[in-house]
């Protein structure tokens, strides 16, 4: 059964001084029990898409359905079957305990009192914050607030749950637990988990399918494995010494599809990750770097990641793209 449908969704934000196309003709479908990832850098349009699907925002054009209900004309029905957890660190009522925060939202969804009480205990146990339940929200650490936020999104037993950067600010172990919870919720309760993230590892680990989004457009949708296998071009990591020279945009190098650069300002070394047009062009790339005054110590061929898929589609990595958006 298809739980989420987007058909040619477009959203334009207009003000006196500018017009921003936040979503551009986005279409996709997500099945029941599927963990679906929306992967893209900040400013790609992930949050705008979630805002429309959760009925917080109206689309400029196009149509979206959640469990067969139109998000514009049947918002009430949509709201009763979804859960949502935003990326915000401060979500909830500060002077109210974690338990009462969860209880309040359970009542808004009409959950029976006894059921709500046991659900709160169950979620707190799974997310390991039972001992924090009776503390007021302002006393909780960021990590516990995030867990509470996730528990709140599940309190009404929703059929579709939207998570926007849910593991931001979480430690590695907590993030792992949350990802395991997502998989379990999807498989055992047939919930659709809709996950917006810019964490490639997270998307790869937890998602059945991933949509790569950039500047409001979906560039590719498939399983993480298929997306990576579609990338037939070689990915190479170059360890270099810049000697103070500027590397610039790796995509400007002849034979390079795109790439990312991580410079260590203290040592003057840089790690350049590039996707080549073909294996044979490596020599040409090395010569190009030498010509710019950058010496290459070593290089190695890597297995492609989802960021490489993004680079092959856009020509730039996430951080470079985010800088473009900010500019």
């Amino acid at each position, binding site marked *: 059964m298809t739980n989420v449908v987007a058909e040619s969704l477009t959203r334009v*934000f207009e003000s006196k001084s500018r017009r921003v196309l936040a979503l551009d003709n986005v279409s996709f479908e997500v099945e029941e029990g599927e963990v679906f990832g929306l992967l893209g850098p900040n400013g790609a349009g992930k949050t705008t898409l979630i*805002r429309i699907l*959760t*009925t*917080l*925002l*109206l689309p400029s054009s196009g149509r979206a359905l959640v469990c067969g209900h139109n998000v514009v004309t049947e*918002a*009430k029905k949509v*709201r*009763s079957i*979804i859960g*949502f957890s*935003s990326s*915000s660190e*401060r*979500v*909830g*009522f*500060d*002077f*109210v305990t974690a338990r*009462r925060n969860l*209880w*309040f*939202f359970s*009542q*808004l*969804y*009409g959950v029976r009192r006894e059921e709500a009480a046991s659900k709160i205990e169950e979620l707190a146990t799974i997310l390991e914050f039972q001992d924090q339940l009776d503390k*007021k929200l302002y006393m909780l650490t960021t990590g516990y607030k995030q867990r509470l936020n996730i528990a*709140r999104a599940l309190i*009404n037993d929703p059929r579709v749950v939207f998570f926007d950067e849910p593991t931001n600010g979480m430690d590695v172990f907590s993030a792992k637990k949350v990802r395991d919870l997502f998989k379990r919720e999807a498989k055992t309760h047939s919930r659709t988990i809709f996950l917006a993230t810019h964490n490639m590892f997270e998307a790869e680990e937890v998602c059945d399918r991933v949509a790569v989004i950039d500047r409001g457009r979906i560039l590719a949708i498939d399983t993480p494995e298929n997306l990576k296998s579609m990338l037939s071009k070689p990915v190479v990591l170059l360890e270099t010494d810049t000697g103070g020279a500027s590397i610039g945009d790796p995509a400007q190098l002849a034979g390079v599809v795109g790439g990312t650069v991580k410079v260590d300002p203290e040592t003057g070394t840089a790690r350049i990750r590039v996707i080549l047009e073909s294996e044979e062009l490596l020599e040409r790339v090395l010569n190009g770097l030498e010509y710019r005054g950058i010496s290459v110590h070593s290089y190695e061929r890597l297995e492609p990641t989802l960021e490489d898929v993004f680079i092959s589609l856009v020509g730039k990595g996430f951080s470079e793209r985010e800088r473009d958006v900010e500019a």
Partner: protein
Amino acid sequence: MKKLLASIALGLERELGWTYPPLVVLLSTVPATASVLTIVMVYWVGASAAGEVHTGWIAFLIVGASLFTHLSSYIWSPLSAVSEGKTSYTYPLVFIAHSSLSYIAGRVIASFIESSLTALLALGTSYTAINLILGVSPPLSFTPVNLALFALTMVVGLSAALGLGLMLAAYAIFVTRLEWGLPVYISGMLMIFSEAIFPVSALPQPLQIVAEAMPFTHIIRASRAALIGPLDRYPTEFFLATVLGLAWLLTGLFIYLYAEELGRRRGYIDMRVA
């Protein structure tokens, strides 16, 4: 109803839970009492100088000023429920739970309960203090009948409070900065138009029409009729307070629902407030 009750409970917890609840009530009562006493003292000094002190005017001021502090304190809650709720992301979550109306109503009712308690304490404390300090006994009747009529007026005032609350909540949807000044401006307007400390007849003619159209004017008049008299004025004022309160409630409801739809179209529902 479940949503409304949960919102009232949360509102009370939010209003009283930031420190010990009795301390909250005390902290709210002290400034309310102080403002009533200030207004009465200003009158006392002026009237004494003119040699014309009327205890009836003192009773008029005690009731009006106590209720004014009541009105001006609960108009904070809808603004806070929405604009502060956008900062803490609680308002968008309540909106997604399809409960924004119940939530705002619940928060206004919770604040109404808290400020009613404060107003009653301020009324009683001011009356006692004036007796002790000035040695005069303002003609206020605290018989069960008088108090019952007064309580009934306050309950009827709830619909006007909700109406005003929803209008302020509608405004707060589009607020992008925390505008804490707004309730102060509104309570200033209420002081002028609601007959809190001077009769509407003292206003220029066109402004009298505005004052007469406000339910708060009739709530205060009905309260005065209940506690000071004459009681035969009570039914008319009570009726006007009820009808105008309901009219304000319906207007507030319409404005809020329209603002919500507009906010959804323009992306303001979950816009962060700086």
